[in-house]
């Protein structure tokens, strides 16, 4: 059992750091979800100004690497410190990684998720919308009765992947933003452990184990939700969510 001891010790050491990654994900995913729905409806809007602005936003954030977005926003925030945040007394908040990190992740996931929801909007059965119109429903009633449930169902598998990716992307935050005191995430801490003994097998593997486990939980929860969303499509065979990695973003 000797070989287990360092693994268990790493698991223990990395427990608190993993909470930072979980925090980053939790702080950005729900807000990003709501923004994304608005943004998707915006891109789908008949109003050309709204449609173009939304499409532009989505393009900007999907068209550039998250890594660069993190650097860019951090340097912009830093540059604004003297003229803006300091006089306002906001520096402690807006420059803090626990605020700035989720903020940038939110902006990023808003774009990716919006594109997913926008795609789902394109695939909504036209006949169902027509029936809603024919029965005299308002735009909002059409949305509630037809658009929303179909959109969420159609988008869910892709959105699940987006959530897992966002969670993985939390590893980038402390690569760009400053580490304050002992506030370290999985990547920081694993790196720190590695620099102590150069054990190439151990530390990053345990960090990866954390990512795997939490991803598994996400897949499970989102899979249960998907079952619920698909309840009316029951055709006997079980449906599975498929994980489709899109390696770099």
């Amino acid at each position, binding site marked *: 059992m000797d070989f287990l001891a360092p693994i268990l010790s790493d698991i223990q050491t990395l427990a608190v750091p993993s909470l930072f990654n979980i925090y980053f994900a939790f702080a950005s995913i729900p807000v990003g979800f709501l923004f994304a729905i608005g943004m998707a409806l915006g891109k789908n809007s008949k109003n050309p100004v709204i449609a173009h602005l939304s499409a532009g936003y989505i393009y900007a954030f999907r068209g550039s690497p998250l890594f660069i977005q993190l650097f860019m926003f951090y340097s912009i925030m830093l540059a604004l410190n003297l003229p803006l945040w300091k006089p306002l007394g906001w520096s402690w908040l807006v420059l803090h990684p626990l605020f700035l990190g989720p903020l940038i992740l939110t902006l990023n996931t808003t774009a990716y998720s919006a594109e997913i929801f926008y795609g789902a909007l394109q695939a909504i*059965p036209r*006949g*169902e919308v*027509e*029936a*809603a*119109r*024919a*029965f*005299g*429903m*308002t735009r909002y*009633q059409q949305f509630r*009765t*037809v658009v929303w*449930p*179909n959109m969420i*169902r159609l988008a869910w598998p892709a959105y699940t992947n987006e959530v897992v990716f966002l969670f993985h992307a939390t590893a980038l935050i402390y690569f760009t933003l400053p580490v304050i005191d002992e506030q370290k995430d999985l990547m920081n801490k694993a790196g720190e452990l590695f620099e102590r003994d150069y054990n190439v097998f151990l530390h990053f593997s345990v960090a990866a184990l954390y990512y795997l486990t939490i991803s598994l939980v996400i897949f499970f929860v989102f899979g249960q939700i998907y079952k619920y969303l698909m*309840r*009316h*499509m*029951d*055709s006997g065979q079980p449906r599975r969510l498929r994980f489709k990695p899109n390696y770099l973003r």
Partner: protein
Amino acid sequence: MAPILEARDIRKSFGLLEVLKGVTVTASKGEVISLIGSSGSGKSTLLRCINMLEIPDSGSVALDGEEIRMAGKPPHRHPADEAQLRRIRSKLGMVFQSFNLWSHLSVIDNVMEAPIKVQKRDPEEVREQALELLDKVGIREKADSYASQLSGGQQQRAAIARALCINPEVMLFDEPTSALDPELEVEVLRVIRLLAEEGRTMVLVTHDMKFARDVAHRTIFLHNGMIEEEGTSDEVFGATRSERLKQFLSAGAPE
């Protein structure tokens, strides 16, 4: 008797294609009208103009003497008063060729959705009526199923119940059986016949000449976007005047 439904001089083009070139359809209370014509003659378009799923370029639609107010010029012509249009739509029960049930709602919820949401009626009363209607169309035991769990014929009967539950003044059917296998067709036709016998006002687009002749009081033959022949079904089928209709009828209803 004043007609309950009046669609007057309806014109509609899609781009350069003029699909309806001034068509008038009126229905008195209790009248069943069948719309026949070859594929692409504009039957669906005419039906969809009646409830403004397609906006006619010109012409007027009135239900029970109330005309749908329009504004603007084509291609920007539109209903002037959305609330009025919604009110009139909720008196027109539309049945589509492809059923168009709301897939994530159970059959009973499909039937109850518009009466509760659009007509703001009491849910309990609506439920009672919905169950009665499902009984009438013969799928009460499917009340809690979803559309994907029903056969095409059952789906279409659910869609008919959904249209009936708004207590429509006029029922609009767009080829309600042409997506169905012959053996499933029968059960849907039986329901429509029943509704005709009840004295409901209906406009029915169909490829089934025998059924049109049987059920419809009047038949309208559309050809090239115009009414080529119109009269009581007995006249139209029994003593056909126009050459085109003769050809159409002798060719057998083309798909």
